């Protein structure tokens, strides 16, 4: 962002007293219109989603968010996001727990440890991982990862941690845990590449000072790099979390789907998230209250993504300002 500030004020303002030319006004007008259009678009998205969910909003109110039900049978229509919201929370928090330490270690490797010849290629490969389409990760998740986890990992976790209610017996290859692993793969490169940049931004004299005091490299990282990049790492985690709650396709492919009429306390049984529930109904045969309730689910996702992004932006800006004044 700071690179934007290099534009000189000379080029920005016409000479005083000179009449603006028609071409200048035209270009500025058209370009400004495009920028205004982007802002308008965000507003329109919010408006359309709210409008689409109006029927469900007026029927169920805010209680929809925590209400646990999904019954599309005529005469018994009853909808609520509770079970799916719970699924979204479990999968994204699980993915965040798995991905964060891994991503921070990757970022540390790239910023502190890697030999020079390895740094460029590994950085490029980690970024390529972020470019793999979610539908392909989902395809791999269904046909390769899911069966592998079912045969080798799920039973081991169940027998080791079975006393915790979440680690129940595994029955299907498509289950919540597979979705967590898939989401982990998807948010790992996001958190890793943001953290790498943050770690590289830690001033060299601070690190050298710590090393000169006799600290080992790990103690230097814990005492200097982590505290310095703390705010940014939090923002990176929030962005990764936002990505995880919004992902629909890959999750829908591997999570299996369920009725949505109860909270699911077993990681190894098929489930659903808000995103996967929407994606599963893509053929668009729903009408009336069911369709409106699906849009309401999208509204919940939209609100979460807006909150997540605003919070991350605020943290980034605040820590940038802090770094700007200390530098």
């Amino acid at each position, binding site marked *: 962002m700071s690179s*934007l500030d290099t534009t000189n004020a000379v080029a*920005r303002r016409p000479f005083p007293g000179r009449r603006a030319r028609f071409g200048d006004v035209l270009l500025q007008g058209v370009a400004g219109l495009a920028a205004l259009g982007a802002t308008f678009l965000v507003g329109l998205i919010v408006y359309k989603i709210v409008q689409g969910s109006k029927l469900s909003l007026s029927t169920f109110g805010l209680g929809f968010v925590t209400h646990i039900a999904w019954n599309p049978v005529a005469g018994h229509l009853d909808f609520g996001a509770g079970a799916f919201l719970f699924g979204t929370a479990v999968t994204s928090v699980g993915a965040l727990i798995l991905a964060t330490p891994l991503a921070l*270690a990757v970022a540390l490797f790239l910023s502190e440890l890697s030999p020079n010849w390895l740094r460029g290629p590994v950085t490029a490969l980690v970024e390529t991982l972020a470019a793999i389409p979610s539908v*392909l990760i989902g395809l791999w998740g269904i046909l390769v990862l899911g069966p592998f986890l079912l045969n080798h990992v799920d039973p081991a976790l169940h027998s080791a941690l079975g006393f915790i209610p979440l680690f129940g017996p595994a029955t299907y290859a498509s289950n919540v845990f597979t979705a967590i692993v898939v989401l982990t793969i998807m948010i790992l490169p996001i958190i890793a590449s943001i953290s790498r940049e943050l770690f590289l931004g830690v001033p060299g004299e601070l690190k050298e000072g710590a090393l000169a005091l006799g600290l080992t490299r790990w103690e230097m990282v814990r005492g200097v790099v982590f505290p310095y990049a703390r705010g940014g790492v939090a923002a990176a985690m929030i962005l990764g979390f936002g990505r995880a709650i919004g992902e629909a396709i890959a999750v829908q492919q591997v999570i299996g789907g369920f009725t949505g009429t109860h909270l699911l306390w077993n990681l190894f049984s098929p489930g659903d998230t808000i995103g996967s529930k929407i994606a599963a109904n893509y053929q668009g045969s729903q009408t009336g209250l069911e369709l409106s309730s699906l849009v309401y689910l999208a509204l919940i996702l939209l609100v979460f993504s807006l909150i997540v992004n605003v919070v991350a932006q605020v943290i980034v800006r605040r820590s940038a300002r802090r770094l700007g004044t200390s530098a």
Partner: protein
Amino acid sequence: MSAANLSALQRPNDRLRRRKAVNRGMELVAWLAAAIAVGLLGILVFSVAQHGASQLNLNLLTKSQVAYDPTAKQGLANAFAGTLVIVAVATAMALPVGILIAIYVNEFAQRKIRAGVGFVLDILSGVPAIVIGFFVYGLIVISHGQSGLAGSFALAILMLPFVARSTIEVLALVPNSLREAGLGLGAPRWRTTLGIVLPQSIGGILTGATLAVARTAGETAPLLFCSSIVGNGISWNPLHAVQSIPVAIFELSESPYPQDHARAWSGGLVLILFILFASLGARWLATRSRRKLGRAAR
């Protein structure tokens, strides 16, 4: 007495050894993590290549997908054609608007507005793809039915922040001396912008556009609601719903038949090859244009 002295002397050494061991362990963890990250990419690409290669032939590109029939030579021709059309139209929508936004932000807007537009772009890129798909569904599909155009519009919304942000970065790299030279020669600002600044940064803009295309060509969620109910014929008409590679993979991946899985893998292989080549091409373009800008700055 002497034993106590000895242990007191030894203690610092023990601690140092432990600290070094912890350090060694953490370095090992970081190496392992990097190996896992690269290994995941390797396993993914290898799986797709391994399962997809056997089906990668002319039939895939020329024959269309028909109803389940294990003996028929089936391909994904309709999906390839549809993806080409949808992505081309989406790029045609997003590229000019994105460049215009970048021009406004970089050449005209004041600091506060610049920050505001940047904020809006961040918000827009944070909206989940499935929500954008539902938005276009409500905006266009409910009243006009599914079409390739609706899908393109949804993809263009995803592309826009990518294109705008990368173009903003590239325009900021153009040295001010060039703008001043243009203005100094008496050229109006619009000519300086369109005739000097834009051509200088065209390489970088194309890089950003290529990356945006590579990132969005594989997007499934926006197309599911906009262009997914399709026949099996090849259609180049974006006014009708057209099949696309990601949607085809999505549907085939949930089929119970191994033949369908094979086709999904092979479609995925083509998609992944396209994305890898586009990303590498963009990287190459980026280093080239940076070198050129470096020369201009000197």
